[in-house]
């Protein structure tokens, strides 16, 4: 983790903006895919790759690297865009998303793209694998951290809670889960489809340390994550409250953007808005 200076924060905000633009471009090129979740997690991914995680884009298999698992594989565009913008591969490759022969599969596959820690898409499976990695690290005295990004709706999966139980049993303080709490899923609001509240209390009851923050505020998220990773003897969860579609006016807060891409005209507007936001960030910085 690096000290966050004002200049560093501005840099991260610009990176998050780059990540969002990459998401829009790749989704437009793909003609299918998910928009709202990737956009709302862009700030978290910029914070992870740009500040919080120990990693080397030129050595994706470095044994001491922190592991970042994306449990909700359908928001892969944000991971791909973050990886590209932080130097794992050229940003032009983002335009191959979901196309035949691409390394950027519709749902991420570890074997195809170095730096993707596991294959995901079927929901509710990431934390369970993260528990295994964190336990393996403890067994071998390795000090890397395991970060698992999950959606809120995948907390409707039974396996996820098996993982929550197991993480607590083995006191995996080297495991940090991040929940994209955007309240949306394919069929509507999470609280209509299958209520998750009281959300934080559930984790507390399972003996996890619980943190909440604005997932679209990079500074706040980084501060929260640092506090979380100081915890001893317990795994931690950060409930990152996010606005679905964050950064694109007509997508923000609209669940219908969960699983569809923008068309050419919509993408143009999105990129125009993001470019204007980028100028503001630069001016403020």
């Amino acid at each position, binding site marked *: 983790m690096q000290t966050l200076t004002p200049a560093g924060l501005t840099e991260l905000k610009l990176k998050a903006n780059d990540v969002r633009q990459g998401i829009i471009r790749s989704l437009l090129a793909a003609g299918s895919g998910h928009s709202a979740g990737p956009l709302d997690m862009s700030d978290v991914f910029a914070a992870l790759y740009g500040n919080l995680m120990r990693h080397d884009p030129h050595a994706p298999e470095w044994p001491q690297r922190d592991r970042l698992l994306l449990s909700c594989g359908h928001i892969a565009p944000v991971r791909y865009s973050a990886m590209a913008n932080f130097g794992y591969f050229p940003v032009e490759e983002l335009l191959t998303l979901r196309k035949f022969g691409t390394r950027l599969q519709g749902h991420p596959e570890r074997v195809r793209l170095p730096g993707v820690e596991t*294959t995901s898409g079927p929901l509710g499976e990431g934390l*369970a694998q*993260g528990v*295994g990695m964190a*336990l393996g690290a403890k067994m071998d005295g390795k000090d890397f951290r395991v970060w698992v990004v999950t959606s809120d709706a995948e907390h409707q999966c039974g396996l996820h809670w098996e993982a929550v139980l197991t993480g607590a049993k083995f006191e995996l303080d080297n495991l940090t889960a991040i929940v994209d709490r955007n309240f949306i899923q394919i069929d509507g609001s999470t609280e209509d489809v299958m209520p998750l509240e009281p959300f934080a209390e559930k984790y507390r009851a399972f003996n996890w340390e619980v943190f909440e923050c604005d997932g679209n505020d990079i500074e706040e998220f980084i501060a929260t994550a640092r506090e979380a990773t100081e915890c001893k003897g317990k795994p931690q969860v950060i409930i990152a409250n996010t606005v679905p579609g964050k950064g694109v006016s007509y997508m923000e807060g609209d669940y219908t953007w969960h699983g569809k891409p923008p068309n050419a005209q919509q993408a143009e507007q999105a990129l125009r808005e993001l470019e204007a936001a980028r100028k503001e960030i630069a001016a403020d910085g």
Partner: protein
Amino acid sequence: MASGTPTLDAAAETMHLVDYRGDVKQVPTRNGFGEGLIEAGARNRDLLGICADLSESTRFEGFRKAHPAQYIEIGVSEQMLVAMAGGLAAVGKIPWIASYAMFNPGRSWEQVRTIMALNETNVKIAGAHAGVSVGPDGATHQAIEDIAIMRVIPHMTVVVPCDSVQTKKAALALSDRWGPSYLRFGREKSAVITTDETPFEIGKAQTFREGSDVAIVACGILVYNALIAADRLASEDGIECRVVNNHTVKPMDEAAIVGAAQACGAVVTVEEHQKAGGMGSRVAEILSAKFPAPIEFVGVDDRFGQSGDPMELIEYYGMGADAIVEAARRAHKRKRS
């Protein structure tokens, strides 16, 4: 054996089989798994045993005592078993995960497909209590579809050893071999027909009895029934059967299967599993493409099991020596017609 009994044939001699024609030692195949795992854990400290509340019955108990630092208990959560093992394998461990076959891979199939196979992780599943020979526990606990659901997954290795001695060898061999794997074995005591000297190689079928009239291709504990049936066919009908121990369902030894069909002209497959989709189905896939020949399938005929004595259930569901004899007679007749 009474004096004057003819010696076993050359194939059995080559394979160092015991003389199975009289009283044969009975040991559960799961015991062989337990012994193999203890040895494998001593050879490699990165090898782990992960259990979902069935340590005694899956024979993980000995491993737990011998290698406590390599043993993990996670309670009744079979999907977790697979997913967590995937994570451990990703950081360099070799996890063996054990439950009843009905629950793992029965309950955890999608995790097996995604996390073990598509994701290419070095996780090994021990599927215990497979087949109707689980006995009194009844249909809920009798996995007779597991070979089918595992053999259709790319990258997967599927091994069904014939007795406890071979199960031990299979556990050791799979531990040393990289890749997602499934080892299937049973609960009940069954005949020990191989010895420490019997060779074992994953992917290499074994001829346990010579013969050129009908090839009986079997796996699991029913290999013994196939040998008994073959002896009866020889004495009662003059039909000489080749008996093949086809322990590796995937990758199957195609050359051995085609060779047996070419030599005999008719085939009987024998497995403690649904006829649909199992080892016999794979034999049929191979032969229909490479050497079409009459095939009779011995297995469960699209039904569920039930409570009962293990051997009584084997008979009732048509997998006893009598059923194999009848199937071989039908195959032989079809060959002639």
